[in-house]
């Protein structure tokens, strides 16, 4: 069984892409999705942790860290392990940021690895995604041509690769990606234009 934890702070525009990509490549496996939130059914989480073969955490990164809620949740898991809970599953991470460089998720990834060491969980593999706002930037620029669609999906082949590691429960080297199809300057310009446009709409509405 694969246990998927959704640790995103806010629902993204392409919500579900992380779990969809896993489901596609691990159809035969039972996949349980749990949103990390304040009022969680902790008994259910513990049961799932015991039965899982792979644990996947998908989360956004801000100020070099996953959210405070996710940190809180990880500490609870560690406490459960100290209290006698046994977790045999490998831990996989999918971290993403709107900043261009995927490496900017590296510190948060290292925090997760330290958590695994403390909780005696085997690290599987990490995928750090930069430029996660590319799809929105492209759409708003009305350049939604076929070639741009391909560029927007730069994450997919890496997500599928990650899904294979998860399905086979094997360990791998962490990977950090960015949208190579567009330059950093272009990405920043598009992102900033999009924000200006949103702000203009807000002022008009006001």
């Amino acid at each position: 069984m694969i246990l998927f934890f959704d640790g995103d702070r806010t629902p993204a525009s392409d919500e579900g892409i992380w779990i969809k990509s896993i489901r596609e490549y691990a159809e035969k496996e039972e996949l349980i999705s749990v949103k990390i939130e304040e009022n969680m059914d902790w008994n259910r989480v513990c049961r799932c942790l015991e039965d899982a073969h792979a644990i996947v955490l998908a989360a956004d990164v801000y100020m070099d860290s996953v959210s405070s809620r996710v940190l809180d949740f990880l500490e609870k898991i560690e406490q459960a392990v100290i209290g006698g809970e046994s977790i045999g599953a490998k831990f996989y991470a999918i971290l993403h940021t709107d900043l261009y460089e995927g490496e900017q998720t590296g510190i948060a990834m290292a925090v997760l690895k330290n958590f695994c060491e403390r909780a005696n969980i085997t690290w599987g593999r990490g995928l750090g995604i930069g430029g996660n706002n590319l799809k929105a930037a492209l759409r708003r620029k009305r350049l939604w041509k076929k070639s741009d669609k391909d560029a927007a999906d730069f994450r997919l082949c890496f997500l599928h690769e990650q899904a294979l590691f998860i399905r086979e429960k094997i360990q791998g080297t962490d990977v950090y990606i960015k949208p190579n199809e567009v330059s950093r300057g272009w990405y920043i310009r598009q992102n900033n234009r999009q924000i200006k446009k949103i702000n203009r709409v807000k002022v008009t509405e006001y």
Partner: protein
Amino acid sequence: MKVIVHDLRQESWQELGMRFHEKDIVIGDGLECADSDIGKAIGSCRQLVLISRCVYGGFSPFIQEALERCRNYFEPSLEVRHGQTHYVIKKQNKNLFGLVCCFYGDNITPKEEQLARIQSVSDGISLQARGVKIVFYDTLDKLRQIDSIVV
């Protein structure tokens, strides 16, 4: 003026006996503070002091939540600084403060300490601090020494 954000329990905080100036701001567990207030306070301070339990080589959930609430300190737009993408800091907040990151805990591994140092510097760059000071204390008693670091 300095801003202190800490995750200590009230009695531990009071035991520290830190010196304060009239305008200093203290944000601790249980103290209500609006998101905009945190951003504004950081934007106008000379020193930002984060006192945090070291959690897996990073800040504790409470301190991390305070940093998340600093969104108001930034523009949503991006720019390149030190060869990496960062959020633009609002013009009125560019006052160049010093950042002090004080981690405590009796079981911090060398790996976690190294990571906490990296995260502190990286957050200092994101917040455009003029300098970053990082200290570690393994007991709450030693934490009293922080008084000699803050202005």
